């Protein structure tokens, strides 16, 4: 067994009473003494501080790096303005999703943030496709913090007033307590907020300053999951994976029209043919939101049926749990496209019993971004 890595905030998590668990090769806090429910609600009401340093940060640099990156992702990269960020996908040749990511135009380079569990593979994937023309450099001397919630702007603006001028998906370099931070106005909670890349040796001091604010509470992975689930955001390896194409995952919006069939820069990325064909023809199955009736959560792996009795499974839950803001169980999963209309009742099999769940438009909780 390989030893677990620690983020620059490990000591602080332990000091704050974080319950540490292995996650994607790191020892991470799943919750703090306040508990998942309180942490979740606090983030929606005020502000939560998350350590997401386990995620991969990568710099891409070289001549016409935007066009080069377009050979790897089905996004409009060249049209992304300086100081702006966008959601992206790495795909295999079959169109399956290898990872989802955020990329930002930071002037003379692209800054890419990828999932922790995928970062080695993603880096190899980028190197194989882009080097030597483009340098692919993992950033290993920086932590990544997320400050999320309606109170995040006031808290961060207290350290750098320019933070308040940023809009959703803007990126800027801000000096926070003397540290050069790469800040984006985005996150994974459905709330307004920021992600802050900070030099590792200054991360703990910055985290302590943010946490010293009355409105800010430390948040673990448990609440991070319930927040993103209510926001209808995919968790890689669960809601999307290498056997899932963008359209069936409800991610066609992320593929700008000029990369689709008939667009000015149509195709030219891995899996373009099957990905564009599925967008044109419509997928056979779709990712949907589900609200199970009653209080019993339907978690990942629960099989779904069209009828209360008999018949074969029509799909399954890919992530689910209790939504504290919704006040009941929420889930996401896949069902056949002809059964995917909101309002449809399907049945999830829990402990041998089929319980009804209503298909619901995502997100479960409206996004609160500052556009």
């Amino acid at each position, binding site marked *: 067994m390989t030893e677990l890595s620690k983020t620059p905030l490990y000591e602080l998590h332990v000091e704050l009473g974080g319950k540490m668990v292995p996650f994607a090769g790191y020892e991470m806090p799943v919750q703090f003494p306040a508990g998942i429910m309180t942490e979740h609600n606090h983030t929606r009401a005020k502000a939560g501080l998350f350590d997401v340093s386990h995620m991969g940060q990568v710099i891409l640099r070289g001549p016409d790096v935007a066009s080069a990156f377009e050979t790897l992702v089905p996004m409009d990269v060249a049209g992304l303005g300086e100081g702006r960020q966008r959601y992206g996908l790495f795909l295999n040749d079959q169109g399956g999703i290898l990872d989802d990511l955020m990329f930002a135009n930071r002037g003379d380079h692209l800054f890419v943030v990828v999932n922790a569990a995928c970062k080695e593979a993603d880096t190899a994937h980028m190197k194989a496709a882009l080097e030597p023309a483009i340098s692919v450099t993992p950033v290993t001397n920086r932590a990544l913090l997320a400050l999320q919630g309606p109170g995040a702007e006031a808290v961060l603006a207290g350290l750098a007033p320019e933070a308040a001028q940023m809009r959703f998906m803007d990126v800027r370099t801000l000096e926070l307590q003397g540290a050069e931070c790469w800040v984006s106005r985005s996150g994974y909670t459905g709330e307004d907020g920021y992600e802050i890349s900070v030099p590792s040796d200054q991360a703990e001091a910055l985290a302590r300053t943010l946490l010293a604010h009355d409105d800010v509470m430390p948040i673990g992975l448990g609440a991070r999951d319930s927040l993103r689930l209510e926001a209808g955001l995919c968790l890689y390896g669960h809601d999307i994976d290498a056997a899932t194409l963008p359209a069936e995952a409800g991610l066609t919006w992320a593929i700008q029209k000029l990369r689709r069939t008939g667009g000015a820069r149509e195709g030219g990325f891995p899996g373009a043919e099957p990905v564009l064909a599925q967008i044109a023809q419509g997928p056979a199955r779709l990712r949907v939101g589900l609200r199970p009736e009653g*209080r019993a959560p339907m978690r990942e792996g629960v099989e779904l049926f069209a009828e209360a009795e008999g018949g074969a499974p029509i799909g399954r839950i890919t992530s689910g749990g*209790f939504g504290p803001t919704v006040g009941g169980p929420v889930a996401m999963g896949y069902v056949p496209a002809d059964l995917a209309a909101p309002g449809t009742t399907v049945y999830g099999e829990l402990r041998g019993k089929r319980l009804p769940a209503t298909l619901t438009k995502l997100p479960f909780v409206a996004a609160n971004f500052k556009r």
Partner: protein
Amino acid sequence: MKYTEEHEWLLPEGDLIVVGITEYAAEQLGDVVFVELPEVGTEVTKDEEIVVIESVKAASDILAPLDGEIVEVNEALADNPGKVNEDAMGDAWFFKIRPSDLSPMDDYMDEAAYKDFIG
């Protein structure tokens, strides 16, 4: 009061035994969001899974600590599962069982032994 290694507490009440989970167990589970109780009148066998508890983290089962008949369940938990976190040792009892065989009670822990058990 007696305690099981499954973190249940058992409190004799007349010829019934009241069963709940310990404060320690409730803390470990985290915020409880759903409790499924057995039906009144069910005959249960020791170690049979008879209660499902779902917390924000995961689902867990509660085992019948004794053979017997379920004679009462705490319906209030269905509407307010969070009670388990607030008052695990009191108001948040799960069920009352009329035991047909009390002998396992002798093997269960007293409070001091349970405290040692959870360290």
